[in-house]
C-alpha cells in the first residue's frame, strides 16, 4: 500500500517473518505401534529427538509458541503445556531454563501417561482425534491472541503407526478444517508409509517425510520440519511426490479405485445399496439391467 520506496543504504531487503509461530506436535506414543513392540527403547530415542526439535523451534524466536500432545489408542493428552500449574524449574546446568521446563514437563507427563496405561488390548492410535484436539487448541490461541498479532500455526504428526482407513472420515474432516483455518499439517512417518496422512499434507500444503533411518530422526526433523512455512520457499526441501488419492468406502473402510457415490451426500460405497447409510436417501432399484443407476466413477 505504501508505494513510496525510501532510499536507504541498508543491506538488500530481506524478507523476514516477524510473526509468531505456533507449533503443535502430535507424538504417537501408543505402545501398540509395531516398531515399539519390536524394540521398546526406540520410544526414548524418539521422545528425546522430538523434545530437542521442539526446543529448536522455541529457540528460533523468543515469541514462538509450542504445544506437545501424546496420542494413545484410547485418548490423546496435552503433555506440554501440561494440565495444572507450570512446573517451577530452576536451572541445573547451562541449558536455557525455558528449554529445561519443556523437557521436564514433557517427560514427566509422558511417563505418568504411560504408567497409567494398563489395558493389554492394543488398538490403533487415534491420530485423527489428536489432530482435531490440536486444531481446537490452535483455534483457541487464535481467538485469545491480541488484535493485530499474526499467528502462524502448524501441526506436526510424528508417528510409527500404520495407516488405517477406519478413521477416514475423521481424517478428511480434520484435513479440510485445517485447510480452511490455514493450518499446515506436516507428517513425519517413522515406520510405515501413510497414504491418508500424505493426502492431508498435500491438502494443507504441508510436508510429508518417511524417515529412511530412525537413527537420524533429529536431523531429519531439523532439516525438513524446522523451517516454518514462510521460510520454506527460500529453501530446497524434498519435492512433493505423487499422492495416492484413493478414498475409503464408507461401508467397509477399504481404499477403492472405483465405487458408487451417493448423489445427495457424496458418500462413497464399494457396492450398490438402495438406501444411503449416511443420509438415508432412497434410490430407485435399478431396472432389469443394473448398469443405468446413478453411478459415478471416481477418477484416480
Amino acid at each position, binding site marked *: *500500500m*505504501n*508505494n*513510496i520506496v*525510501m*532510499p536507504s*543504504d541498508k*543491506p*538488500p531487503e*530481506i*524478507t*523476514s*517473518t*516477524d510473526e*509468531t509461530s505456533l507449533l503443535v506436535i502430535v507424538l504417537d506414543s501408543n505402545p501398540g505401534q509395531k516398531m515399539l513392540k519390536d524394540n521398546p527403547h526406540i520410544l526414548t530415542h524418539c521422545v528425546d529427538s522430538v523434545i*530437542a526439535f521442539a*526446543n*529448536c523451534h522455541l*529457540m*528460533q*524466536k*523468543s*515469541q514462538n*509458541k509450542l504445544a506437545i500432545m501424546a496420542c494413545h489408542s484410547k485418548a490423546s493428552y496435552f503433555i506440554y503445556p501440561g494440565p495444572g500449574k507450570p512446573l517451577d524449574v*530452576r*536451572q*541445573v*546446568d*547451562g*541449558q*536455557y*531454563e*525455558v*528449554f*529445561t521446563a519443556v*523437557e521436564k514437563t514433557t517427560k514427566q507427563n509422558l511417563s505418568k501417561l504411560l504408567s497409567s496405561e494398563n489395558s493389554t488390548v492394543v488398538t490403533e492410535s487415534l491420530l485423527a482425534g489428536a489432530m482435531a484436539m490440536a486444531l481446537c487448541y490452535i483455534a483457541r490461541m487464535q481467538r*485469545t*491472541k*491480541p*488484535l*493485530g*498479532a*499474526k*499467528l502462524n500455526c502448524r501441526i506436526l504428526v510424528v508417528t510409527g503407526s500404520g495407516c488405517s482407513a477406519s478413521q477416514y472420515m475423521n481424517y478428511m474432516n480434520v484435513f479440510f478444517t485445517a485447510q480452511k483455518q490455514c493450518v499446515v499439517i506436516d507428517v513425519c512417518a517413522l515406520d510405515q508409509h501413510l497414504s491418508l496422512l500424505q493426502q492431508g499434507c498435500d491438502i494443507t500444503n504441508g510436508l510429508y517425510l518417511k524417515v529412511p533411518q530412525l537413527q537420524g530422526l*533429529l*536431523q531429519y526433523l*531439523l*532439516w525438513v520440519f*524446522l*523451517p516454518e512455512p514462510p*521460510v520454506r*520457499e*527460500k*529453501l*530446497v526441501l524434498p519435492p512433493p511426490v505423487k499422492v495416492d488419492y484413493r478414498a475409503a468406502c464408507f461401508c467397509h473402510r477399504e481404499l477403492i479405485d472405483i465405487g458408487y457415490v451417493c448423489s445427495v451426500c457424496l458418500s462413497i460405497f464399494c457396492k450398490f445399496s438402495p438406501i444411503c447409510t449416511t443420509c438415508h436417501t432412497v434410490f430407485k432399484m435399478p431396472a432389469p439391467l443394473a448398469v443405468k443407476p446413478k453411478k459415478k466413477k471416481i477418477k484416480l
Partner: protein
Amino acid sequence: MADNGLSSSNHESTLIKPTNLECKNLYDYLKTRPSNVLERLYNHPTICLAVYRELPELARQYVIRILFVEQPVPQAVVASWGSQAFSKEHVYVSKVLTELAVWQEAAIPGGLLGWILSPTFKRNLKVALLGGGKAWSMSSALEADSKARDVTFLDAYSLERWECVLHYMVGSQQQEGISADAIVRRKSGIFLLQYLDTVEERGLDLVECLTFLFQLSFSTLGKDYSTEGMSPGLLVFLQHLREFGLVYQRKRKAGRFYPTRLALNITCTQNKGVTNIEEDSPKGYIIVETNYRVYAYTDSNLQVALIGLFTDLMYRFPNLVVGVITRESVRQAFRGGITADQIIGYLKQHAHPQMLQVDNRQPLPPTVVDQIKLWEMERNRLTYNEGVLYSQFLSQADFNVLKEYAQSNGSLIWCNKEKRTLVINKHAHDDVKKFWKRYSKGN
C-alpha cells in the same frame, strides 16, 4: 542517482546522537567488536543464544543444519540449500555469519572450501539447547520469597523508574524527542548500548556485563533470581540496572532480584513492531484518521509530549489529547532528528485496537503514511557523490566516446553536452583515465 557517500546530516550534538538510532542493534554492535572479544563472548551459552536469535531467518536454518556436523561442509553444498530465487539473500546471510565469526572458512581435503561453525559457538549453543556445562550465574536455588512480587507490580515499577531516567536525561524538549520517538524497549536498548560503551571506563568487565545482561533477557518475568556468587563488579552493574528499572530489588542487600519487562526485551532489537502474543502486554491508544487527526487516549505526560513532537496539539482532556499532523509539525520533528519511519513505527506500534480491527497489517491510513514519507523526502532532495570533473574536451567526438564509456560502466554521475563536461565517480577515475590514455594513443 547513487548512494550518498558523504553524510549529509549535521545534527546538534545531543546526548544520544541520531546516528545511534539507525544502526545500533546487537548485530551492528557485535560486528564492530574484535574477534577475540567475540570469542570470549561466545564462551557463554546465553550470548550464543541471543546472537542466534538475532541472525536472519535463513542463517538460523543454516546454523541448525550444521550444528551437529563435525566436519566442514562444502560452500557449494551450503549454497544449494537455498532456492535459486533467493540467492541474494544467501550471499547476505553468509556475510553476516562470517562477520559475526559464527562460522569460519575451512579447507576440505580435495581443495574445496567449506564452512565450519566456530567451535566455541557450537559448543555453547549446544549447551544452551540440550544442557550440560555450568549453570548460569544467577540461578542458585532460593527459598520462596516471603514478599514475592507479581508481574503488575514489576511493570508499574519499571515504567516509573524508566520515566525517571528519561526525565533526568532529557533536559530540553529537543533531546527528549530523539530519545523518545521509539518504543520504550528500543529506547532502553539504545540507552544501554550507550551505557555499555562507558562500562569499561568504570572499571567493569564488558564481557561479564554483557553476559549478565543476556542472562537477564532470558529470565522469566515474575520469578526471583539469586545474587549469590556474583563478582563485586557485577553487583555494581546490577545496582546500575536497578536504577534504570531493569531489575527490581527490595533492598540493596536482599540477595535476590526480579527482572522486569524492560530487561526481558532488551535483546529484541528487531525494530519491526513485534507484537507480543502475551495477553498482558499494554494496549495501544492512538487513533489516526485520514484527515490527519490523531487521537491519543492517554493521561501520561510523557506520551502526550511524544505525540506533541510531531503533531500540533489541539485539545487536551483528562484522558484524551487531539492533535493534527501537519507539514510544519512533521518537519519540526525531522529537524529534531526523528525519521519518518520512526514516526510511522510509533503510531503503528501504539495503534488503538479499534484501528487494528479494520486491517491488521496496515492499521494506519495509507494517505497519512505516504504523506509523512513524502514530507521527509522533500528534505532529502540532494544526494552527495564524490566525483572527478572531466572538462575541456577538444572535440565533441572525444567527449561522446568518454561519456559512452562511463555510461556503460555505470560510473557517470552528470554530464553536459554543450559545455563538454563530465563528472565521473571517484572510484572509477583510474579506470576511465586508463581508457582515455589508450583511446588517445589509438588516435
